[in-house]
């Protein structure tokens, strides 16, 4: 799986979580940029990503996430 696959699949997960089929993400997108991205939405994103990619994100890894780009990289290292 390459970075584009990860980006595409994570974007789909964000669209589902925020109920917005037109939502787009950039590498520097943060929680401030998306209305409704609170701690509850964050957990839904994490749980959906863990289930979808069949991976496990460590608490420290989640806490270190600063932007969507960080999320791509973290997932990418686990699936490739």
């Amino acid at each position, binding site marked *: 799986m390459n970075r584009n696959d990860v980006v595409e699949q994570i974007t789909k*997960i964000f669209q*589902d*979580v925020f*109920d917005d089929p037109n939502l787009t993400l950039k590498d520097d997108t943060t929680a401030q940029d998306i209305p409704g991205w609170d*701690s*509850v939405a964050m*957990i*839904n994103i994490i*749980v*959906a990503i*863990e*289930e979808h990619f069949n991976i*496990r994100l*460590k*608490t420290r890894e*989640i806490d270190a996430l600063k932007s969507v780009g960080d999320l791509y990289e973290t997932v990418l290292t686990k699936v490739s």
Partner: protein
Amino acid sequence: MSTPQLAWLPDPTVTTKGHLWDQRLSQAKDAAPDWDTLLDLARYNLNFMRTMKLDRVLTRQFPEPPAHLSVKPVRLALLGSSTINHLVPSLRVAALRHGIWLTVHTGEYGSYRQELGQDDEALKEFAPTLILLLLDARHIAGFLPRNADQATADMACQEVVESLLPECWREAKSRYGCPVLQTSFLPVFPRLMGSAEALLPSSSANFITRINSLLAASCHKHGAIFVDLAAEATQYGLEAWYDPSLWWRAKQEIAPGAAPAFGELVGRSLAALAGRSSKCLVLDLDNTLWGGVIGDDGLDGIELGQGSPLGEAFVALQDFALRLSRRGVVLAVCSKNDEVNARLPFQKHPEMILREKDIGCFVANWNDKAENIREIASRLNIGLDSIVFVDDNPFERSRVREALPMVNVPEIPEDPTLVPDAVAAAGYFDLIELSAEDLNRSDQYQANLQRQSLQESATDLDSYLNGLDMTLIYGAFNSTNLSRITQLINKSNQFNLTTRRYSQDDLTALMADDTAFGLWFRLTDRFGDNGLIAVVIGRDAAEGIVDIDTWLMSCRVLGRGVEEATLSVIAAQARARGAIALRGTYLPTLKNSMVADMYSRLGFTLLEDRGIEGKSYILPLAEWMPAATSITLSSEF
């Protein structure tokens, strides 16, 4: 890390009704609100994300209960000691799955005692009809002093079970006038002494174990409704239900991934409260209650009883069914079989657990199963939505689900050893209490029943068959499939017009014979490949006639137009040989009465009736046109 599944429900990532679940949800989202469409979408093995998406459509389209609903709407107050909001979509969707419109009010974080102990404005205004009290294990363990000795631990245990909780239940009743669903507690604590944990009075793990073991009786005594969360969690294990990282991050004791299973657990209690628990288990026979096909394999040939793992597994399913029947579930049989054959094991097989007296309604014929189930419901005088239908054949399951969406049709594992647990896990028969009426119900039904044969009735079967994408692939006998053809020729008893048996050598000779032809048929549909399902042998006779020497078919594909499609292939073959007519022969045996009238049904004219010696029929080909079917033909000549 696994996630609890609703494994008895169909997989939403497989196409049904022509679309994927996600597509069907998008369509429903943009369409006019339709409760039944959403109910249908709720009956899939949904993960928490799909559950959330369905819930959005549900709450948008039905902010108020639909007008026609016969089941009373439920106003549920969800009160807890930690984070509970993430469970709400799953509760609403599970209620929907059980035909119930549910609205949920969630209490403030950790404020259940204030909300119950004094008049809470928001809660009063919401006017709940039911309260779900969901307390986390750490909260409960907080009632056990850190250095408790045995006497203190005993007292703390009594305090929770006989004082704290019953007080909450009483307050709910007096202040809000509604009953409480009380869950048991997840065993989240690490053990300090392993198997000897019970010896340690200050152990939180042991404290929870003790309270869970006392809770059911306390609920019963004080009028609360017990929901056994701890027992449910053993199905996929604690790790699947409880994720410590989410507890410490968000105080979610039930992980979002387990929310759909939690919702379903509560949904069953709602259904039971509304009197909507299933009442009748309808069982298929061949390859469901025993291994093999009674009509072909006979009493000695079916797999049932001690001595083989599968034989014992079929006994286990029968035992499960019998135990259900003893506690009030009515059993019925719905089988594609001649009734005489179908009843034989119930009467004569020494290893059968179920006997005729255990079956409240016995239907064995060759009709569409959806129609037969409708008939069973009307004869037992119960609603179709209180029926559970268990059949090993995915075609029949899908057919019944489509024609009768209110009937509960669990997905059944292919391995018979797994079937009893799969049916139990679906929880269709779950109750909240056991009444004397439950214990007597099966007897009442049996006393009232006359067993009669079913009338045929017209249905919307055609449109269903059209959606099956059936293709009948056919070709001439060849060396690669000759052994399977030989096997079918020597094994098929029921759909077999002449029951002529041939050895592999006979058939090899036939392949070289210019005056004869052998055809095999394979049927595929959207469920997959049904394999080689029919064999025909034709022989050139005098006066431009082709004799149908042999025609047999697997009963599994009966009632789908395969006979008509097969005939069109035979006719085309005969025409290609220059024939002007087909001659069909029916030779009666003890087992093939189901095809006694097949040739007349297919438009042949009776030539000669020799009684038990058989009948012969003729079909002139000059003007004959094949009947329309839903089947595409594909030649492999």
